[in-house]
């Protein structure tokens, strides 16, 4: 039975077309995956179903949800539909909950706004919903506030709120994008189980084909506000016709061609590094506590090598990175780069040899500077800015695949992928030997990510770079590194050749990480 049918939905915001003739259907007990890159209109399609669109949005076409014509409903009628007939889970669990209310009260609210029940009864049913979302009140009291829970736990609270009234349809908009691989796998399992056990329809929105391919019955691929292709999941992956879908599939398992070069001298030598953070005292008279973020970490990075560092958020990857950049002091061990100890007294000329590219292509630039000045900024490490600095900027911009005339524009004029190219240009302007890539492709869409990975592979040969590639995304690390370090709770639990670690992981944690990572089956595996 069809639960949700979207028929030729057009949507514009203040006259600007956002969706064009979008059609899709979700049946009870079915999982429909909606895939697309940012700006493809997948979230807007979901918000159209809930009619929670931005101001000035106007829909035409038909949306039928459990027998009701959504586009003809009045606002009060829509309020009765939301939460009761359709629940929704959002991407960002850290901000999706009201910080001032307990989780119990927030789950109970779904029940209280729709049904005439006592508060006590609503709380009882909230406890049931939290238990179904695998957050049993026995272990996680309903009097907890959101800030007392982790991201994955908060996402379970959001799910509990969405399923409290056992809606027929659940819409999950990138529900695991902000979570670690292991948590992601748990949340996806939970959603799958809820669909199977409660017979809900699930509209699962994601930019990641691998996340959806594993669990969806149907797949809908969107681009620029239109559905380009849709069909049964298993069939569609083998029979994609639209060039965009194929490009998407190719991009998500993209393998950049990398120069083969035998690694030689050690450039970076990390030996027994320990980084402690002071934490608040325990009790009134307790001594100062310490949290060991990095515990006895040792590794070497050789010239021309590409080294991966993987682990969940909070495992100490970023702390280690900052220590290597000399931005944090260490409490034990030593970090040596080019034969000198990093930290106080590390010469600027050598500092220029280690550069970094961060994750967020939007937040890491001063919006009031032109690109030329942004890219030329590292020159302050040199005694004087060279006279031909503009030529050098133009050259490095060309090297990263940008037009040199980008120099005289501001950063807001560029897309996320272009900004990341500019960030790489900034890192390369001093011709460093070591480039640290801290989640440098994590915020990018798959097709852009594939382009940037290709670019990095090419630059490695041209500039003779060594990469320290930090990421929580195993598939990216697998595709671009020679060796990999696996970090858990501040310690390196496993290291070795990338292929070897991925094929025959030795440590339990590595095995868990690899098992949890969503992966697209190869064509051969699908046929088998």
């Amino acid at each position: 039975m069809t639960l949700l049918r979207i028929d030729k939905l057009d949507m514009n915001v203040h006259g600007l077309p956002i969706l064009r003739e979008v059609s899709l259907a979700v049946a009870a007990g079915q999982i429909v995956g909606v895939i697309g890159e940012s700006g493809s209109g997948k979230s807007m399609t979901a918000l159209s179903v809930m009619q929670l669109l931005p101001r000035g949005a106007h829909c035409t076409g038909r949306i039928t949800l459990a027998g009701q014509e959504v586009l003809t409903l009045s606002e009060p009628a829509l309020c009765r539909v939301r939460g009761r007939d359709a629940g929704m889970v959002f991407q960002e669990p850290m901000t999706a909950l009201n910080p001032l209310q307990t989780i119990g009260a927030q789950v109970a609210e779904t029940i209280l706004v729709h049904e005439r029940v006592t508060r006590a009864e609503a709380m009882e049913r909230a406890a049931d919903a939290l238990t179904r979302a695998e957050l049993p009140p026995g272990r996680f009291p309903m009097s907890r506030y959101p800030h007392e829970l982790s991201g994955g736990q908060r996402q379970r609270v959001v799910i509990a709120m969405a399923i409290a009234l056992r809606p027929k349809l659940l819409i999950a908009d990138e529900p695991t994008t902000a979570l670690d691989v292991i948590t992601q796998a748990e949340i996806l399992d939970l959603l799958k189980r809820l669909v199977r056990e409660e017979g809900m329809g699930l509209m699962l929105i994601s930019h990641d084909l691998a996340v959806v391919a594993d669990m969806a019955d149907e797949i809908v691929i969107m681009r620029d506000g239109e559905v380009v292709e849709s069909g049964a999941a298993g069939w569609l992956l083998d029979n994609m016709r639209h060039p965009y879908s194929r490009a998407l599939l190719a991009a998500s398992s993209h393998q950049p061609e990398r120069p083969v070069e035998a690694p030689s001298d050690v450039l970076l030598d990390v030996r027994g590094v320990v980084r402690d953070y002071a934490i608040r005292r325990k009790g009134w008279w307790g001594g100062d506590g310490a949290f060991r973020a990095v515990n006895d970490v040792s590794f070497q990075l050789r010239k021309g090598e590409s080294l991966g560092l993987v682990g969940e958020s909070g495992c100490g990857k970023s702390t280690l990175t900052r220590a290597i950049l000399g931005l944090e002091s260490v409490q034990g061990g030593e970090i040596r780069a080019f034969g000198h100890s990093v930290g106080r007294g590390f010469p600027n000329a050598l500092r220029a040899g280690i550069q970094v590219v961060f994750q967020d292509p939007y937040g890491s630039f001063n919006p009031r500077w032109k690109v030329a000045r942004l890219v030329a900024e590292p020159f302050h490490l040199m005694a004087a800015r060279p006279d031909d600095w503009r030529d050098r900027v133009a050259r490095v911009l060309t090297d990263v695949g940008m037009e040199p005339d980008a120099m005289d524009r501001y950063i807001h004029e560029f897309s996320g992928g272009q900004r990341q190219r500019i960030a790489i240009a900034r890192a390369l302007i001093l011709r460093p030997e070591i480039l640290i890539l801290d989640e440098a492709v994590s915020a990018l869409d798959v097709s852009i990510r594939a382009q940037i990975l290709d670019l990095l592979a090419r630059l490695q040969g041209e500039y003779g770079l060594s990469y320290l590639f930090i990421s929580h995304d195993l598939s990216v690390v697998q595709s671009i590194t020679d060796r990999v370090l696996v970090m858990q709770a501040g310690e390196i639990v496993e290291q070795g050749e990338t292929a070897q670690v991925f094929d025959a992981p030795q440590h339990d944690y590595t095995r868990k990480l690899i098992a949890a990572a969503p992966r697209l089956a190869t064509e051969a595996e699908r046929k088998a």
Partner: protein
Amino acid sequence: MLRYMVKKLLSLAVSLVVASAVIFLALEVVPGDPAANMLGINAQEETLAALREELGLDRGPVARYADWVGGMLVGDFGTSYTYRTPVSEMIADRVVVSLPLALYALALSTLVAIPAGIWAAARRGSGVDLGVMGLTQLGVAIPNFWFAMLMVLIFAINLRWFSAGGFAGWDAGVGPAMHSLTLPAVALALPQAAILTRVMRSALLDTLGEDFIRTARAKGLTRGQTLWRHALRNALIPVLTIIGLQFSFLIAGAIIIENVFFLPGLGRLVFQAISARDLIVVESVVMLLVFAVIMVNFVVDLTYAAVDPRLRRSR
């Protein structure tokens, strides 16, 4: 929560000690001879000597500071040099005017500003919003002494609903006393209300753009329910901060309005004491005002914790 309170109390105590030391140093130690400062350049040598003895200047600054602070702790603020009356009595006379006036003005401003801010935010971009924003622009721009004189002209001179100035005193009863404080309170409240309305509106609009508001809407709450149940309390923190700052200002900063309405308040007392170089009064009143400001901030900090569970754990 207890730890948070104790921490805030400790910082309160430290602030008081530092503030008293600064006031003492500024007025008594740094610029030479306080007695000469108080009496001016034409003072007779005998008078100066007498005052020096009265002030205890023959003793060291540490002993005098200890005396001053110790005296204040038991309510002894010394004796005014110009009026020859205990400073504590003078302050007591004035506080019963200034404190009710400040509370009255704050109540008026809060009662107007919070609903107006909510109304404007709820109808963002509408005529209501534009109207409210226009009025607040005016409220911020109009000098309050000019507004006070305008009100005197209309309500006291033409309509004769209020007296043009003076304070009826509490002996006459609460009604007449509040009546004589009404025009000054309105004059004081006007700019405060304008600022507070703008803060309330923008805080609420920021909160309404948060992710959890969308989550609440997806649960089936109406726009109104979302605003009252989820947005308002989250928007209160900046509003409370401004209310705290405004109250501190109202206690001490009403000098001009007190002068316009001939009110015997603390602001006028400081003003007169400074003109008369009565350091003893200045020092005590300033200390009292600092104390009031610090107490208000303490109360605001406690309110933060009551509003936001994340602050109850001290860091």
